[in-house]
């Protein structure tokens, strides 16, 4: 709406300042005005191309070679890296680990939705609870890793709490692949739930209060209010959270790398790629892996844009 009025107000072409300027000066001004935006854009564009687009192009190119990242020599190998990626099961298994994080993000979104709904009503100490639930999102990932290494340690926080309740299991929480992955995915819920929660809360609070009053007059209970007022109001944010958690689950790195270094079956796709590229000098293979991940994430984004078209991309 504002856009159309603004376009109308703005002169269609940059006009030279009116007055007794000679025509040649006017032309010079016009040419100068054509250059001006580029003076502002040159720096940002150079950075954008150098650190986003050039890497993508290079990465695709490397993925068809056997380059080791150091030597001046490299050979074109066709789709060999991709074939290796899809046929060597241990290279592809890391995607299964993402499943744990994907399941965790379902829990995470459900919990965030619950707490956002609860705290959108009148609750005592609301700001305190809001702050507590959000704060983990702001904490440094390495610090979180250490906090939870101690938490899951033998005789650490978790064992101490359980022994208060009479369980003396002394389990090695990070000892088996399944247990370790569940624990790490739990840490990820602990860390990221706050962001989803605050996004949901913001969306719920932007729903006009009269709607609830009207619903209450009509005798709607809390569940019906949630179902018919809150749920539609937060749909765009919900879909954004889903897409963030899908791409997040596929590119988990920090928590497992810091806590286990990828041991006991907790290696994720990004950890594996980093190891391939920077420890085993298999730049070609690592590039192919990264291209696959990039394509998957772009596909997920595209599907989400398709499914939720009202989440419009704003092309200025």
């Amino acid at each position, binding site marked *: 709406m504002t856009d159309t009025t603004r376009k109308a*107000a*703005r002169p269609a*072409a*940059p006009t030279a300042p009116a007055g007794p300027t000679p025509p040649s000066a006017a032309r010079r001004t016009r040419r100068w005005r054509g250059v*001006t*935006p*580029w003076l*502002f*854009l040159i*720096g*940002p564009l150079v*950075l*954008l191309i*150098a*650190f*986003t687009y050039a*890497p993508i192009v*290079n*990465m695709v190119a*490397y993925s068809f070679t056997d380059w080791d990242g150091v030597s001046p020599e490299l050979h074109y190998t066709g789709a060999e890296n991709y074939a290796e990626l899809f046929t060597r099961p241990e290279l592809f298994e890391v995607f299964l680990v993402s499943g744990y994080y994907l399941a965790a993000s379902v829990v995470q979104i459900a919990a965030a939705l619950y*707490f956002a709904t*609860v*705290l959108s009503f009148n*609750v005592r100490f609301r*700001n305190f*609870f809001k702050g*507590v*639930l959000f*704060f*983990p999102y*702001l904490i*440094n*990932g*390495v*610090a979180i890793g*250490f906090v939870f290494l*101690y938490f899951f340690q033998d*005789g*650490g*926080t978790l064992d*101490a709490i359980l022994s208060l309740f009479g369980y003396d299991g002394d389990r090695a929480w990070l000892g088996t692949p399944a247990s370790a992955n569940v624990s790490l995915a739990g840490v990820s819920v602990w860390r990221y739930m706050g*962001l989803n929660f*605050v*996004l949901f809360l*913001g969306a719920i609070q932007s729903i006009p209060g009269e709607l609830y009053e009207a619903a209450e007059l009509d005798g709607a209970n*809390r569940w019906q209010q949630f179902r018919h007022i809150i749920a539609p109001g937060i749909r765009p944010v919900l879909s*954004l959270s889903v897409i963030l958690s899908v791409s997040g689950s596929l*590119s988990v*790195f920090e928590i497992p790398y*810091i806590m286990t270094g990828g041991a006991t079956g907790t290696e994720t796709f990004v950890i594996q790629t*980093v190891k391939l590229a*920077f420890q085993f000098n298999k730049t070609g293979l690592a*590039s192919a892996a*990264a291209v696959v991940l990039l394509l998957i*994430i*772009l596909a997920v*984004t595209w599907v989400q844009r398709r499914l939720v078209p009202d989440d419009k*991309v704003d*092309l*200025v």
Partner: protein
Amino acid sequence: MTRRAVARALVYLSLVLATLVVLLPLTVVFLTSLKTSGEMADDSGALTLPDDPLNFGNYVTAFQDGRMLSAFGNTALILVVAIGGTVLIGSMTAYAIDRFRFRFRKLVLALFLVAALVPGVTTQVATFQIVNSLGMFDSLWAPIALYMGTDIVSIYIFLQFVRAIPVSLDESARIDGANAFTVYRKIIFPLLKPAIATVVIVKGINVYNDFYIPFLYMPSEDLGVISTSLFRFKGPFGAHWETISAGAILVIVPTLIVFLFLQRFIYNGFTRGATK
């Protein structure tokens, strides 16, 4: 009535439980950071209180042997330069894209929009080679350039705000003889204060917490930022949980202070940053 009361009680119960889940792991680490290595060795359990609640010896160890001082210095330097750069780049890009009509404008815009979809973690394999060939590997310039050059979200935020500034302001300044740079410097930039506050907060927290980029690009110990220096506690302090805990708390406290003072801005900033 009673059913309502029960539901209310359950709601509070769930909130208290969630609070415990969030605070307990942090509290235990804080308690551990105040214990001596002797107390840690006698196996009294993680939940016991330290004998001397004012025992800050582990913090001294963490600061001196863990090189946390130089880590905070490096982080501060990167923060200031990268955030300053991001604010300049974001506001200039937004000004140029919103206030000028020029050839390839749509293409430029599309380049920025599409870049926002590419997650940085996926491209590091190749970004590394570029950073390396520019001679920035293992220097503070690598993270600074990457933080400045790959932050599309801030450009979005600035774009939103520039659009909200009435064009008539620029035009009247133009009539008074101001050129594009003067308009940017004297009119647009000062009016972008709320956007700048948002970007500074969100970017600041992200840079402070980032581990991946400094870990990949700055392996030298002298160039440790707080994330990587804390990560290095794992080796020398291996089983010394009291020192590791002190290091973790040292890193968390500044975040807590900033959060307590800037709560409202932080909520708004992250909501805006994520949804735009």
